[in-house]
C-alpha cells in the first residue's frame, strides 16, 4: 500500500500537534509565571512554529521524495545524523510521556479517584501500537475520520464557557524577565511540527498546497489561542488553580447547576486528542529509532517504545509533580535543540541547496542562450539542443533527487522550445 498522506491528512496531524500538551495543564502553569500575558508568549512561540512549518514545506519542494535521514546523511554525515535521530527519539518519548501523564492525572481525578495505571496502559498502548503498525497513512485516515468529532467537542467546550460571566483579563502586568522565564519553561510544549520533518517523504505536496497548510495551521492556532483567552477571561486570578483548562471551561457557575454536568464532552474530546497525539509521538519515536537502527522491524520498534514508555512511566508513577517540574526545568534544553537548533540546521541545508538550485538555473539560462546562438550559427536541430540542455542540467544537479531534477529540466526545456519562453522562465509542474 502506498504509504503517503494527503494535505488534508497533514492538516489534521498539524491541528493535533498544535493541541499537544497545551489544552489541559499548560494554561494554568503559564499563568503562574506570566499571568494573562502568557497569550503573547504562545503567540510568539506559535509564530516561530509557523516559520518552522514554512521551512519544512520549502525543504519539501527541493526534496519531494527524499527521506529526512538521506537528506541529513548527504549533508552532515552518518554519525551526526544518528545523533540527531537519537535526540529526536528522546524528544518524542518525553512528549508522549508528558501527554499521557497530564491526561491520566485528569482522568484519575475526574473519574477513577485512584491509581489505575495498568488499566490506562492496557487500554492505550495496544491501540497506539496498532496505529504505528498500520503506518502513517492508516492512522492519519483514522484521525481524518474523527477530527470532526474532536473539533466539535473542542468548540463546544469553548462555546459553553460563554454562558458564564467572563471579563477581559489584565494584560501587560509582567516584566520582561517573567515573560522570558515563562517562555523558556514551556518551550517543550511547542515545536511539535518537527514530526512532519520525519515524514517529509510521505507527504503528497504540490506548490499550491501552501495555502491549505496555513489554513489548517491557523485553525489550530486560533482554537488554542481562544482556549487560553477564554480560560483566562473566565478564571482570571484563580486560573492557576485549574489544571484542566479545556474541561474547566465547561464547569458552570451556580446559575447553571440545574443543567447538570457536561464534563463528558470535554472527556471524550480529551480522550480522542490524547490518543491521536500519542499515536503521532509513538510514530515519531518509531521513525527515529528506525533512523538509528535501520534494520529494526516495525514490530520490535513499537515493543521498544512500550518497554521504555512503561519503565519511564514507572519511575514517574505517583510523581506527577516531578514529571511537570522535569518538563519545565530540563526538557526546555531538549526543546531548544529540537525546536530551534535543528530547524536552523535545516534552514542552512535549505539555503545551501537553494543557492545551488539558483546557480543551476543561471547555468541553464547561460547554456540556453549559448544553445540558441549556436543553433542560429550551426543550424542545430531542436532535438539536439534539448539533449544538450538536459545534459547541462544533469551535470549541474548534484543535490538530492537527481532524477527528479533531471526530468524537470527536460520538461522545462521541452516547454521552452514549445512555448518560445526565454531561458529560465519555465514553470515546474509535478
Amino acid at each position: 500500500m502506498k504509504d503517503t498522506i494527503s494535505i488534508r491528512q497533514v492538516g489534521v496531524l498539524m491541528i493535533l500537534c498544535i493541541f499537544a500538551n497545551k489544552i489541559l495543564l499548560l494554561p494554568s502553569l503559564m499563568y503562574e509565571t506570566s499571568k494573562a500575558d502568557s497569550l503573547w508568549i504562545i503567540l510568539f512561540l506559535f509564530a516561530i512554529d509557523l516559520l518552522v512549518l514554512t521551512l519544512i514545506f520549502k525543504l519539501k519542494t527541493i526534496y519531494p521524495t527524499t527521506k529526512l535521514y538521506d537528506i541529513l546523511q548527504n549533508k552532515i554525515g552518518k554519525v551526526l545524523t544518528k545523533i540527531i535521530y537519537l535526540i529526536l527519539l528522546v524528544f518524542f518519548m518525553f512528549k508522549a510521556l508528558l501527554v499521557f501523564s497530564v491526561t491520566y492525572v485528569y482522568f484519575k481525578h475526574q473519574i477513577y479517584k485512584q491509581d489505575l495505571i495498568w488499566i490506562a496502559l492496557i487500554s492505550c498502548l495496544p491501540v497506539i501500537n496498532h496505529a504505528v503498525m498500520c503506518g502513517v497513512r492508516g492512522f492519519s485516515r483514522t484521525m481524518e475520520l474523527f477530527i470532526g468529532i474532536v473539533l466539535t467537542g473542542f468548540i463546544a467546550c469553548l462555546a459553553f464557557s460563554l454562558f458564564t460571566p467572563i471579563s477581559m483579563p489584565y494584560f501587560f502586568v509582567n516584566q520582561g524577565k517573567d515573560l522570558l522565564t515563562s517562555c523558556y519553561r514551556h518551550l517543550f510544549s511547542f515545536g511539535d511540527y518537527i514530526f512532519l520533518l520525519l515524514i517529509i517523504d510521505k507527504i503528497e505536496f504540490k506548490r499550491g498546497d501552501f495555502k491549505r497548510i496555513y489554513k489548517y495551521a491557523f485553525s489550530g492556532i486560533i482554537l488554542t489561542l481562544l482556549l487560553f483567552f477564554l480560560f483566562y477571561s473566565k478564571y482570571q486570578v484563580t486560573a492557576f488553580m485549574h489544571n484542566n483548562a479545556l474541561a474547566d471551561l465547561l464547569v458552570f457557575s451556580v446559575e447553571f447547576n440545574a443543567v447538570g454536568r457536561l464534563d463528558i464532552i470535554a472527556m471524550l474530546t480529551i480522550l480522542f486528542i490524547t490518543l491521536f497525539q500519542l499515536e503521532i509521538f509513538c510514530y515519531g519515536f518509531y521513525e527515529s529509532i528506525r533512523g538509528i537502527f535501520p534494520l529494526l522491524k516495525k514490530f520490535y520498534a513499537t515493543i521498544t517504545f512500550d518497554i521504555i514508555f512503561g519503565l519511564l512511566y514507572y519511575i514517574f508513577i505517583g510523581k506527577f509533580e516531578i514529571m511537570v517540574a522535569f518538563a519545565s526545568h530540563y526538557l526546555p534544553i531538549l526543546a531548544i535543540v529540537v525546536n530551534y537548533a535543528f530547524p536552523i540546521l535545516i534552514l542552512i541545508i535549505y539555503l545551501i541547496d537553494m543557492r545551488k538550485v539558483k546557480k543551476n538555473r543561471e547555468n541553464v539560462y547561460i547554456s540556453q542562450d549559448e544553445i540558441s546562438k549556436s543553433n542560429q550559427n550551426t543550424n542545430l536541430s531542436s532535438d539536439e539542443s534539448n539533449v544538450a540542455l538536459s545534459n547541462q542540467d544533469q551535470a549541474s544537479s548534484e543535490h538530492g533527487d537527481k532524477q527528479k531534477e533531471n526530468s524537470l529540466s527536460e520538461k522545462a526545456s521541452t516547454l521552452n522550445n514549445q512555448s518560445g519562453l526565454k531561458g529560465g522562465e519555465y514553470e515546474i509542474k509535478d
Partner: protein
Amino acid sequence: MKSKIKYFTTHPMILILVIILIFFTPLALFSPGENKERGIVIAVGIDKTTEYEVSLLTFIPTANQSYKEQTSLISGKGQSLGEAIYNAQIAMGRRIGLAHAKTTVVSESMLEDDICKSIDYISRIASLPENTVFISTDKSAKELLQANDSLVSKTGLKLEQVINYNAENLYISDTSLEAFYKGYFGRTHSSIIGSLKLKESPSSQGGNSSGESGTQGGGESSSGSSGSGAQASSSGSAKMEIENNGDAILLKNGKMVAKLDVDMLNGMNILNPRSKHQIINIEDIEKDDQLVNMGYRVADKKVIINTKFENGYPLFVAELILSVDLVEIEGVKEGLKVNTEFSNVTNEVATKIEHKVKQQFTKSLNLIRECKADVMGINDTFHRNNRKEYEKYIRDNGGVDEFLNNVIFKLNILVQPD
C-alpha cells in the same frame, strides 16, 4: 485451522481486542455498583469547635414512589479536616464522592480564621467542585444541613436555590466557591459569601424535639483523641428552620470582617447596573395636602463611570440614571395603591430618592473603607482605566488597602419615571 491461526496472527488487533474483552468484561460484570462503593455527597458542612467536624449530606439512590430524595446526614470529627473527612467516610462505609456537592456550608466560627486554608484542602485534594455554592451560617453547619430536609419538604426549595436567588437579586455576584477564591486571590483579597440563619422551629419549641436521633457509626478516630469519631444521623430529625434574610458576610483575607444586611448590600450594588428591583422608601411626601410615605421600585438603571487622577488624587465620578416605579403609598387615608397616573417623579420625590440612595451608598462605602475590603471593585476600575497613575499611587500611598480611603467620590443621580 491453520488458516484461522494465520488470520489472527496477521490481524493482531483482533487478538488484542479479544484479550481486552477477556480482561475487562469480568471486571465490569462482577464489580459492585459504583453507588455501593461511593457515597454521593450533595452538601458539605464544616464546623470547628475544639476540633473539626465535617458533615456530609449524602444522597442514597433508592427506589420509591415519591419524588423525594432520600438523604442522610453523616458526620465525622477530627483534629484536622482530612481526619474528619476520613472519619465521615468510615461512618458512611463508602468512599466519599464530592463531585456532586452543590452546597458547602461553614459555620461563622470557621470564619474567625482564614477559611481558605481549610476549604482549600477539600477543594483541591478531595475534589470539591469550585461551582459549589459557598455559604456560612450563624449556628453550626451540621444543623443547617439537618434543616435542609425540612426546607425541601416545606417549600420544595433546596439550599442552593435559596442562595441563588440571593445571589441574583441581592449580592449581584456569584456565591460559588470559585467567586470566593476570585475575591480571595484578587487585588484586595476581599469577597462576599451568602449567609443563612437558623432559628428554632415553632413545633420544636414545645418540647417536641424529634431531632438528634443520631446513630453511632463508623469508628473511633485513628488519633484516638477524645470526642473524635464519626456519627451518622437521619436527615428527618431537623428541629431548626432556615431563615433567609438575604444577609451576607464580608471577608477580608478569608476572615469575616462584617455582616451585611440587605440595605448594606443594596448600597454596595448601587453602581452595579445588574442590580435592580430594590425598593426605595421615602417619607413625608406631600400629596393632596397630607404627608404620605412612598415606596419606589428601581425598574432600570444606567451607570456611567469615569475615573481619573486630579491633582494627584483619585477621582471616581459616577453618573447614575435611575428609572423608578411607584409601587406603594402609605398615608393616613390610603393603603397599598399603585397609581400609574401618579408615577411621574416630582422634584421633591427625586431629591428624596437621590438623598436616600446617596445615604445608602455612603453607609456601605464607609463600612468597606473601615474593613479595607473593596468588594465594589473600585481598585480594579482604577487599575483598568488609569493603570500607570494607579500603580504609582498605591506604591507611594500605602498600598491597595489604603487606596479606597483616598478616593474622592462624585455621585450624580438622575431620577426619572420608568
